[in-house]
């Protein structure tokens, strides 16, 4: 991704929102998140846009719709009088109480992400996944449970799922998670009592849940806990060998992206005539569209990494 004069940004993840653009158009949440992560001066100017309110730029109407991915995430509809193009950005259609709910938008041309664009990805219900931790807790509440979760979006979602499942103890956070959690709370997402890990003794964390970015699990940081149970919240966790390889003891299949069934349901429901597939495993989704008489082509973009 390059810094450009005018950037329209779908959401705050680093592979979508970068620093140095001159003008940024995004939802207020996305702008706030960018400022928290990169500082107030990470772009020349910011213009915030509300969901559902069209903005006219060069005879094109731009409308943002909730994408259900993280707080402030948007799909962007670009309309002329004749045609509607929808860019999904990263999205998921399944419910998530830590962000605005996804809305289906009909269009003539769809650009969809395909992070989990293989039929092996059929994400189970997240509320069942989170129970794995609570069940492990019932059996052994003397261990420290460290959950690997990305600082923006995933972490807050995991906390929210724990709260919705009735866990109301203090949850401890790696330093990098604090600011974004505070921001979510300021936006009315109730995350309960949170505290930084800081320099407490390893005994202080016995029977506690700690949330840290996945990179910290492999890092020296994790050595402060004696013999913790490593958990990891990610859509990739459905693949056992992959979970095993990252030394995860409790894999939590919790994803912020559509699984295969959500992807194909969206393609069918939005009544599009043509699909461009990007960000992920394009081949399988293109193959599926073509065998279902929908025009589809892969759209290759730069700077793409895994979730």
């Amino acid at each position, binding site marked *: 991704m390059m810094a450009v004069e005018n950037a329209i940004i779908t959401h705050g993840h680093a592979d979508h929102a970068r620093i140095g653009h001159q003008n940024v158009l995004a939802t207020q949440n996305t702008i706030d998140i960018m400022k928290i992560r990169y500082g107030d001066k990470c772009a020349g100017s910011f213009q915030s846009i509300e969901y559902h309110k069209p903005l006219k730029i060069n005879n094109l109407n731009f409308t943002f719709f909730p994408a259900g991915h993280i707080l402030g995430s948007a799909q962007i509809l670009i309309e002329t009088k004749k045609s509607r193009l929808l860019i999904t950005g990263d999205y998921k259609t399944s419910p998530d109480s830590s962000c605005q709910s996804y809305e289906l938008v009909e269009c003539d041309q769809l650009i969809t992400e395909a992070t989990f664009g*293989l*039929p*092996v*990805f*059929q994400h*189970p219900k997240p509320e069942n996944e989170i129970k794995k931790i609570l069940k492990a807790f019932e059996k052994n509440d003397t261990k420290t449970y460290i959950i690997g979760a990305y600082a923006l979006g995933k972490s807050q979602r995991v906390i929210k799922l724990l709260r919705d499942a009735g866990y109301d103890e203090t949850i401890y956070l790696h330093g990098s998670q604090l600011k974004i959690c505070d921001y979510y709370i300021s936006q009315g997402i109730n995350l309960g009592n949170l505290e930084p890990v800081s320099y407490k003794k390893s005994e202080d964390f016995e029977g506690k849940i700690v949330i840290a970015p996945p990179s910290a699990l*492999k*890092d*020296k940081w*994790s*050595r402060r806990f004696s*013999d913790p149970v*490593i958990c990891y919240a990610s859509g990739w966790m*459905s*693949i*056992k*060998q992959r*979970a*095993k*390889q*990252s*030394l*995860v*003891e*409790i*894999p939590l299949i919790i994803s912020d992206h559509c699984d295969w*069934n959500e992807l194909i349901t969206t393609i069918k429901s939005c009544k599009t005539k043509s699909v461009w597939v990007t960000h992920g*495993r394009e*081949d*399988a989704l293109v*193959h*599926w569209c073509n*065998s279902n008489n929908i025009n589809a082509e892969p759209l290759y973009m730069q700077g793409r990494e895994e979730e």
Partner: protein
Amino acid sequence: MKTFSSLLEKLLFTPSRNRKKSALKEYIANTPDPDRGYALAAITGDFKVKNITASFYHELIKDQVDYELFKMSYDYVGDLAETISLIWPIKSVKIQEELSLHAFINLINGNSKSEQKKIILDLMNKSNANERWSIIKLTTGGFRIGVSAKLVKLALAEYGNKNIEDIERIWHGLSYPYLNLFEWLENKSFKPKIKFSDMFHPMMLAHPINEEKDFNKLKPSDFFAELKWDGIRVQLVLDNKNKKVYSRTGDEISQSFPDIISNINGNAVLDGELLVGRKFEALPFNFLQKRLNRKKPSKKIINEIPAFVKLYDILFENGNDLRDLPLSKRRYILSNWLKLNPSECLDISKIIDFKDWNDLKQIKIESTEKFNQEGLMIKSKNSVYLSGRPRGLWFKWKKNPLFLDTILMYAQRGHGKRSSYYSDFTFGVFNDNAIVPIGKAYFGFTNEELKKLDNWVRKNTINRFGPVREVKKELVLEIAFDSINVSKRHKSGLALRFPRIHRIRWDKSTNETDYLKDIKKAFF
């Protein structure tokens, strides 16, 4: 099937051996017969489903999903059971009663292929992804969940509050679903009685001797010494009807050695080393390799490379268990037995006379350096015959290791306690200007050294491949190893036996390391 598949998942994802053992114990305690027996047999590999192979599942999945999509997925996931279990279309089928593990196994084993297909199809539709994975793994074999038979036996011993040795001694004579075993573990019945000649008896193994520590504590007159023969350890089980040769892991290898089978008689269980050569003169291991893994050796090869056994020990004679007698007594019985049952394939491994440890050291140097023997065995005269590797009774004193200076190339994070440390190291040597891998080692260093190595790896990473880091080719590792062989495993075309990191040569530069061509010259 549900409890069984949760057990498998739990075992797969639990890195700690102790926690795996607890999971097994919990399963044994909470699962009725005969399911628990079948489950343990499946995990230890004693039980296999017949007739179902990978192609069975390929056919099954073809009817369920677009095969192109399946192929793309398989390519990405890399494991058949995982791919099928995950790609299987989720259907809202009403779940009737749970099918038990043994009911499933009986259904599968008692039916034709087309019936098997119907049964599995139905079950796959009713299961979740993890259960589907378990069904496929169970029917095609090989769970790869990091649980050894030993761990299962330990869990059983703890569950029944029994001595592990008592379980080891009957294990190979039991058959699943182990009803008699569980009855005994739960004190509802006596220990299962198994005829000695119906089973392989687990072998007793030795620890490497620590010259500095052990010799001070050990009294030379309490020990026997004998040569450490470089063949394969075998057990001969003989009675009037049957004659069997087992490898050290309990696999029957009688078929490969008809020359031995036809030349031995008697009623005993013997422990020894299988070697090749004439007149009990052992040829190097390379020759023996030509006889191994041949299910039906030709007469020609048997004539060219005849096999024989150097006997170390006797475990049973005429149905009497001798294992609780001291070794000195067993050796006495062994020589008498051989006098009564002479064979051109059996010889005694001689006991070496020595005065003290220094004397024995001279003998060891002479035998390893002049006669290229593997080393010596040192066995307590009082030792009873226990399974596994009991401490302080038997020692092996191997010839001195060989050394190479190599260059650290890759490092991988370890498991369990070592999971935040880069502790598995791949090292290589110069081949002209390129560096080619020659081996891997993950021990030989102290905890302090590990911390330093870990730090060095983190600071000098140049590439990452999943859990593996490639490092700058700057650190010299002095590797100790037992022997070197030609092998396709590593790019260098060589493989080291038992490599370990002897010293980290922070002081050496990489142009002082050994070159591949020189290594080849020196060893071949």
